[in-house]
């Protein structure tokens, strides 16, 4: 019996790889036609720059192009780590990023929790719409407003003076840069970011709340024992994503707001890369710095993901 089966299976010929590939392409030919622009885009604008990272290890000469430029190994990395500004840039990047995380990450969550408590649906909608308007305003306009409001005669300065503070040019002051940056980030982003948390809040089972009311739980206990665990998966995923961007404090806003007077606290890795690379055309050097940043971010992302896998059920991948 067994031998008969073996003969039967041998009789089925396996088609060669090329024939199978050809058949697959013919069967789904339109899909492959569609795939051409998409794959071209990714290869050209996402993966080719990734290979361009090799510039970090070469003395890039425009005349010679990427492949012919000579290999200098880790020279740029060493130059960066031993450089005058390394400590300052790293410290600023981490300081701004951590402040943004400490204050800017919980703000939308708290805002969403507060919004959730509102009884009046119409008022809630109005507040939502109003608060997420600033997200859509261009960063240039926002920074224009910030520079104006925080200048010596600006309106926020006036409020601070009225509350007993000093009258100085806050935008040119290095000590206050971090606070202004994080504060305005919160102002612009809290409405938009809270949308995700509101959606997560809406997904928490209403029956749990009713059951807890029967058991005699007040609002606070409900918050701690139902709401927080309910939105925990969403919060953790957003936190992991955020940690994966720890070193890449967005350069756009920094570049718009900083000035030589505030380089001491405002210069971050990304803005330094921009100044050195595109400003001074030191491509190899700044590519090395940028690569350093991407790798640290990846490592942080993995670590955060592993930690969350161990201590909770949710993880990004």
């Amino acid at each position, binding site marked *: 019996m067994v031998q008969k089966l073996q003969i039967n299976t041998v009789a089925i010929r396996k088609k060669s790889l090329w024939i199978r590939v050809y058949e697959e392409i013919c069967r789904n030919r339109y899909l492959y036609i569609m795939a051409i622009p998409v794959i071209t885009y990714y290869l050209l*604008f996402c993966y080719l720059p990734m290979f361009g990272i090799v510039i970090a290890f070469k003395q890039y000469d425009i005349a010679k192009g990427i492949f012919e430029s000579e290999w200098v190994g880790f020279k740029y990395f060493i130059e960066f780590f031993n450089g005058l500004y390394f400590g300052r840039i790293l410290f600023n990047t981490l300081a701004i990023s951590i402040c943004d995380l400490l204050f800017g990450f919980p703000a939308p969550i708290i805002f969403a929790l507060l919004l959730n408590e509102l009884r009046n649906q119409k008022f809630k909608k109005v507040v939502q719409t109003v608060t997420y308007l600033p997200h859509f305003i261009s960063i240039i306009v926002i920074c224009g407003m910030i520079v104006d409001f925080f200048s010596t005669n600006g309106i926020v300065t006036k409020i601070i003076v009225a509350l007993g503070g000093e009258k100085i040019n806050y935008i040119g002051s290095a000590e206050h840069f971090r606070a202004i940056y994080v504060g305005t980030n919160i102002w612009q982003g809290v409405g938009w970011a809270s949308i995700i948390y509101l959606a997560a809040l809406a997904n928490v089972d209403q029956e749990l709340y009713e059951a807890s009311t029967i058991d005699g739980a007040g609002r606070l206990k409900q918050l701690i024992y139902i709401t927080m665990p309910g939105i925990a998966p969403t919060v953790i995923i957003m936190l992991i994503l955020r940690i994966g961007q720890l070193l890449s404090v967005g350069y756009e806003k920094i570049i718009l707001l900083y000035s030589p007077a505030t380089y001491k606290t405002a210069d971050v890795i990304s803005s330094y890369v921009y100044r050195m690379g595109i400003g001074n055309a030191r491509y190899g050097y700044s*590519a090395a710095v940028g690569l350093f940043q991407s790798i640290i971010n990846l490592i942080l*992302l993995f670590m955060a993901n592993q930690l969350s896998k161990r201590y909770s059920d949710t993880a990004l991948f």
Partner: protein
Amino acid sequence: MILITLYPFYYVITSSLSDSSYLIGDKGLMLWPKGFSLEAYKAVMRNPNILTGYRTTLFVVIVGTTINIIMTSLGAFLLTREGFAIKNVMAYMMIFTMYFSGGMIPTYIIVSKVLHLDNSLWALILPGAISTYNLLIMRTNFKNIPRSLEESAKIDGANDFIILFRVVLPLSLPIVAVMILFYGVSHWNSWFSAMIYIRDRSLYPLQLILREILLLNSV
């Protein structure tokens, strides 16, 4: 909360309607324009850069968003087709780019030196043609469309293009509208790419002109 959010905008509007001589000096908490004047608006209209800025930005927004939507829909659609051999490979390829990218400098070198797109508006449109994040949103939405519709279309002899444009997209119009919003706003607000790629002042988008006015010299 609403007051804190809205007041800055209100202040900007009222100060734009005020006479400039009041603004230069000490400014108080402004609730109403001081010395109503449209002078500021006239100055804006007289500046020719603003008009070219609008023209450039409008072009980038319209053409750019169209290309974005087409490319993103194609990509998302491909990820939902069963029996498509390279589907998983493509998915991994796309998601990887969300976490790791070449960085500012290599991208700059590719776009300006290798592809010679510098000083052209295509440098603003093409490098950002697909946002993987948006593509995933569209894919999730496309997945929710029942397969029976696709199968009945295939029985009627539709090929994949027709399925995409006649069946899937019309059913996903809300998401397409959201994508138009996201991409459109992103193009309208973008300035950094223009700053590093474009030299020709007549090709500056609106945001860059604004930056000159607002941040480099206060007009």
